[in-house]
């Protein structure tokens, strides 16, 4: 798939196995996503580029049941997002939790702890007719459930 990334320096592209581009602090080792000018943990400047793992598990999720106001700039309907769409926080083991769109999921099969993998998906068509692409996480049939996410017995 071709396409123009929604932002520079966000994920490796084009690539058969894209990765999110985070930052790693030279002083304390903390990871951040996206890479910022400073470390969110210790404040040191200049975290270096760190490619974040492409596989993880779902830490939490929600549905998006209405179109956000601007600056939202995505395509809804035909060929675009169906309402509701889904958003989650994905835990990349041993690294970081990343907020992302979830694709290829429905409310029925979303489970906290389910394995997910990074994908790059079409987002919108820009003013020059080019396809803009962005990152999302999709179910990972080869992945493993997180072991720490046994559900508490829900009481009525």
């Amino acid at each position, binding site marked *: 798939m071709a396409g123009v990334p929604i932002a520079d320096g966000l994920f490796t592209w084009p690539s058969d196995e894209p990765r999110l581009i985070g930052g790693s602090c030279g002083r304390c080792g903390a990871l951040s996503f996206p890479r910022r000018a400073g470390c*969110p943990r210790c404040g040191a400047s200049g975290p270096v580029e760190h490619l974040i793992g492409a596989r993880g598990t779902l830490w939490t999720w*929600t549905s998006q*049941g209405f179109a956000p106001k601007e600056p939202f700039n995505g395509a809804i309907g035909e060929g675009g997002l169906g309402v509701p769409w889904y958003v989650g926080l994905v835990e990349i083991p041993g690294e970081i939790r990343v907020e992302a769109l979830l694709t290829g999921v429905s409310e029925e099969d979303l489970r906290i702890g389910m394995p997910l993998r990074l994908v790059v998906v079409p987002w919108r068509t820009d003013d020059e007719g080019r396809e803009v692409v962005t990152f999302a996480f999709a179910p990972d049939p080869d992945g493993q459930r997180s072991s720490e996410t046994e559900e508490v017995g829900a009481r*009525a």
Partner: protein
Amino acid sequence: MPDVAIIGVGLHPFGRYPGKPALTMGAEAARLALADAGVAWTDVDFAVGGSYEVDQPDAVVAEIGLTGLPFTNVYNGCATAGSALALAKQQIELGEHRIGLVLGLDKHEGGAFTADPTSYAAPEWYGEMGLFLTTKFFGMKINRYMHDHGITQQTLARVAAKAYANGAINPQAFRRKALSEEEILASRMLNFPLTHYMFCTPDEGAAAVVVCDAAIAHRYTDTPVYLRSVATRTRRYGAFEVHGTSAAIEHVPAPTVDAAKAAYEAAGIGPEEVQIAQLQDTDAGNEVMHMAEVGLCADGEQNDLIAAGATTITGRIPVNTDGGLIANGEPVGASGLRQVHELVTQMRGRAGDRQMPTVPRVGVAQLYGAPGVAAVSILTR
């Protein structure tokens, strides 16, 4: 160091007022608070104002009198009123001034708040992708909390139903129609597990309080309420917060937990002594989580407490007796002063149909908002 007393409160009811400027509402709230305190505007030494939409709330002096007093404007997101109260309290404690007015006013459009993500340390793509939404964060936070602590969606519906029930008996509330748990659960799903009727809406309104050196409070009122402490905090590394593109795996508590701890310590009062709470119920899930974050219960106890009616007006620890944000909406700059208005009204035994059976002695007010700021105040009579 002087203690600080609240001697007057005023509220311009929250709601929708087409064509009425926020400052006009602010002026009305200020006059009500001054009249309640029996203080002339010319006797007020200083003022603090807070607003999201109005750059300079001090412009209200054009309506209530150009006395030349020092008037400081503060803005701190949803915690604006907490910061305004903290500043007023400090000025009195420093002995700089003896009588002050704290004012909050705002006028928003309906629907979820939006802004430029880069103003909240979030990148542009985060907004373009539709992720720059507080409601989405609240859906994600409560969904994980329900998973970890067994909180049910029925509990969320009960919280919202209580808010509308309290609003129905509060003549100043915005939403005055009681709604059943079934109606709340059946309303449109906005951000799972939160339905339309579980959310508050941005709206319009103003609130004001008159504070003074407690040593002179008796000149103005027989029923002073003491502002024992105010603490504000921002998020720490490891907290899962609104407008965060990522979160660390190492976990620390939310800023409300830190602010509450500091406020209880400064007041010398523990959470077990609290008899009434005003919590930031931007949605029903937030009220549930904030109950635990301010120490009113342990994580997971909310199902049983709420099912037993513990947080209703006649319960053991009433929460949001005036209907909270869900029934009043949120004019950001004024919202926290509405909380104080309600605590003071209950502590004076003047809450009418919604008065708690036993007039409370200790109350807590809590604010939380983007991008991870919190304020907690402790009041006693």
